[in-house]
């Protein structure tokens, strides 16, 4: 089961929906790990004829399935950072009519969303679908350091070492949730970490 129902939350928390094939002159699809399933779900030969798929496997290879779709271009990269130059080139060379599809973890979708918006694509025109891990990309509000793939609350900042409480406050600009010191009042009193959604 790679789909997860996020509990209702505050306004700043992003809401992910479901991909649907749209009419367009070209299609850019960016996914990580199980996000590939969202692409497999909507793929048709017509859609794939003009699709550029960028997949970051994170240990979950979908190579065979994705190449069987016969997309115009398929790239698999070790990380989002490694894929970024390619994503930027697609955006620079792209024309109006390009459709964007993002699928997978919140960290991937958030960062790619930020990149799409800085290329001038309005937020409302970008489709998303969550699949796979519910881990979060977190920013420590104290040292500003980003830690990826956080699954527990509290967690320890990989930069300054503080123990941080996982909040639902989300920054679109950073594509990260906020982590706030958990033992600010009572130093050293750190609750036992548990899953974010437990």
């Amino acid at each position, binding site marked *: 089961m790679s789909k997860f129902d996020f509990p209702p939350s505050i306004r700043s928390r992003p809401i992910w929906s479901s991909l649907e094939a*749209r*009419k*367009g*002159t070209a299609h850019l699809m960016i996914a990580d790990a199980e996000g590939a399933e969202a692409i497999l779900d909507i793929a048709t030969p017509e859609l794939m004829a003009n699709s550029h798929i960028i997949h970051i496997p994170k240990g979950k290879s979908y190579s065979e399935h994705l190449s069987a779709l016969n997309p115009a271009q398929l790239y698999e990269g070790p990380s989002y950072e490694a894929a970024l130059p390619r994503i930027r080139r697609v*955006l*620079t060379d*792209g*024309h*109006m*009519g*390009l*459709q964007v599809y993002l699928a997978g973890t919140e960290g991937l979708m958030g960062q790619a969303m930020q990149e799409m*918006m800085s*290329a*001038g*694509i*309005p937020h*409302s*025109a970008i489709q998303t679908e969550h699949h796979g891990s519910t881990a979060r990309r977190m920013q420590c509000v104290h040292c500003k350091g980003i830690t990826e793939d956080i699954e527990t609350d509290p967690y320890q900042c990989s930069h300054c070492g503080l123990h941080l409480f996982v909040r639902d406050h989300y920054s679109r600009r950073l594509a990260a949730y906020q982590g706030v010191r958990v033992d600010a009042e009572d130093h050293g009193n750190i609750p036992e970490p548990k899953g974010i959604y437990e």
Partner: protein
Amino acid sequence: MSGAEKIQVKVTEVTPLNALVTRFRFEAVDGSLLPTFSGGAHTVVEMQDGGITRLNPYSLMSDPYDQSAYTISVRRDDAGRGGSLFMHNQVKTGDEMVISYPVNLFSLDLRARKHLFIAGGIGITPFLAQIHQLEHFNGHWELHYSCRSEALGSYADELSHSHPNKTHIYYDDQDQRIGLQHLLEGQPLGTHVYVCGPKGMIDWVKSTAEAESWPADNIHYEEFLAPQPGKPFQVKLAISNKTIEVGEHESLLEAMEREGVDAPYLCRGGACGQCETRVIDYQGNFIHRDHWLDDNEHASGEKIMPCVSRFEGKTLVLDH
């Protein structure tokens, strides 16, 4: 009176441009600086025409950062309701007039990587101000401007002269047409398209951009409707407790204003939503002409936009 705040101005120049279009320059009566605005804004000009007060919106075309004066261009409409004829025939240099603070319902989306302007005829005016605005910041823009003929192409020469690489002019009488589909297909990601001109042109650009899969947020248009004449009708105003008659050549909004009812408005052309009024009771048919309410709201009989819409039937009671 409702609407935006007012400014007392003096007409300091009246410049005929061609057989149909005349430009007017306004400066503050007390010599003070006028507020800056943003490209695409309009002002509502008050005209004291005999016993009637006419209030017509016109796009500001001057540099939005030039606070010494505002300019507008008015196309004479001989079959219109008389506002443009009043401007052309009655307004002289030295006259004092009242205009509203600028209101912008057609502003640039400054997140755009590129601004693509499509103008038809007098629809060029808001773009003139937007071009000034973008030129201050080295903004990326391109204009495609279609006019009837060289003789009627207001500002076509000036634009081609100052921005030869960004301006493309098309003359109807020389069978030149904007190759719209091709133009839209070739636009870089992050382009916003803006269209101002006759209704047919606006619909054409909107539907072509949609067919080319442009996001709705990247398509902008400005369409002010002039109120249309129609059969006179009666309206009961529940709050002011008055029954008023709307004449053949006035709008419902104008009739309420004539009777001293303080009704809100901004665009007076069915576009801004400001005048939306609740219908308390009715028996008859609405003639909805705005593009503010959606089809369901039009069908519901619960709301009317008095600046452009009318009514035919027995009773109409409004929440005013």
